[in-house]
């Protein structure tokens, strides 16, 4: 028994890795769907967007890199689709290097038929400078973003004609996977301009954003692939996030199993050591 436990404790980590790989790969090849309960944080963003119309400009900051497309990218697509359905105007403005590319991907895969670039949505590209750049864009948008990502000047883009500062927007949505995150936008958008703001963040950032939601500085909070899957359920457009939930379930279970084995071996061997002492 002790020998077995020792072997189990010092198992080759490569075996652990292979098992995790399989736990994720199998459900991706043979997907299964699971029922989703909608959390209140996601619901309140959905309800808010339901009330928007063609006169509303929404700034969307897709501040994530390709690696995070499976985490918050699904939510970005779903929310973009929802905003388009409501007829709201979507202005993508990024403050992370990879943002414009992510916006392009979302536009390419999710734009509903009949929506026009420059009229209904636009990709303004990326500005370096972190929170300082956010502050400056919200204060004077045309100066911070004089051209869109393709180099078209603001005067040729009807959608941003009336967007001078944060005063002209109805909602700001940040997709963040690190950096200054929601706190930065709370400081630069909510506090000075009193505008509604929602954040879509990774699982590890989710708990840290709950205080902002509770303090009503966030009108909605979408957390990770799970939040994305909830939003996809709400707008009835199943896509990447829902498809990944099977892999989530199996891999999470495996990690739980690892934790249990770790403790079982730890305690058996500890008892053994005490007895033989």
């Amino acid at each position: 028994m002790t020998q077995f436990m020792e072997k189990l404790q010092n198992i080759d980590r490569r075996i652990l890795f292979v098992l995790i790989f399989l736990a994720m790969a199998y459900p991706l090849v043979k997907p299964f769907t699971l029922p989703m309960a909608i959390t209140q944080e996601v619901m309140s963003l959905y309800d808010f967007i339901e009330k928007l119309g063609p006169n509303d400009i929404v700034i969307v900051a897709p501040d994530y890199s390709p690696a995070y497309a499976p985490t918050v990218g699904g939510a970005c697509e779903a929310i973009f689709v929802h905003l388009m359905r409501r007829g709201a105007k979507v202005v993508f403005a990024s403050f992370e290097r990879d943002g414009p590319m992510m916006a392009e991907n979302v536009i390419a895969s999710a734009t509903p038929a009949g929506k026009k670039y420059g009229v209904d949505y636009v990709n303004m590209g990326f500005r370096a400078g972190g929170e300082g750049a956010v502050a400056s864009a919200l204060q004077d948008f045309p100066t911070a973003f004089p051209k869109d990502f393709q180099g078209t000047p603001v005067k040729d883009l009807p959608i941003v004609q009336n967007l001078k500062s944060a005063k002209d927007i109805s909602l700001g949505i940040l997709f963040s996977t690190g950096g200054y995150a929601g706190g930065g936008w709370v400081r630069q958008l909510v506090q000075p301009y009193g505008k509604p703001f929602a954040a879509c963040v990774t699982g590890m950032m989710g708990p840290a954003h709950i205080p902002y939601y509770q303090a009503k500085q966030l009108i909605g909070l979408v957390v990770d692939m799970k939040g994305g899957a909830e939003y996809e359920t709400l707008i009835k457009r199943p896509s990447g996030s829902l498809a990944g939930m099977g892999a989530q379930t199996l891999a999470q279970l495996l990690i739980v199993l690892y934790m249990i084995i770790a403790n079982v071996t730890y305690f058996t061997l500890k008892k053994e050591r005490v007895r033989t002492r």
Partner: protein
Amino acid sequence: MSAQFGVYMAGIVTIALYSYLIGDNALFKFAEHLYVGSAAGHAITMGYINIRDLGWTPLVSKGQLSMLIPLILGLCLYSRFTTKYIWVSRYAIAVTIGIGTGVSLRGMPSAQILSQLQASMVIKNVNDFLAILGTIGVILYFLFIYGQNPVTKGFSRIGRWVMMITFGVGFGTSTFSMVARGTGAVTAILRMFGLVK
């Protein structure tokens, strides 16, 4: 450049980097250097676009002479490559740190301290009361010089437990995001073998 070629390229680089999980090897090293190099090249592209659109174009086409300031400050950063003129780069560093400090300092007290303090004052039920105890416990845990007495020590003990719960929640919720990112990479490999679309 066919889409299929792209799928293979993505699959191969993914496998090359994952070979690290088995152990350090020549394939991983090669991929590592290619990755670091292309990321650096992409950074140059992005830096260049920022400089061109915000600095150079307004200077040349609109004659905004004030744009000379950041352009010169930016160039000053490169004085690092000499030992004699290193001090020139300090002006650029001063402006960047000045912006960073000012922008974060101005919102800090109200957005991060007072609104959180106000939100902690609401007592409607036992849970709210517990939450307040926890918050005060964590705050008092971070006393370093004053208040080394049994009362604050008791609070800070509570604070430490509360933080451990917080970290447990953080670990639990973030495995979610890690698996999500893992599916992205696994998909790239599966796609190469035609197992998923």
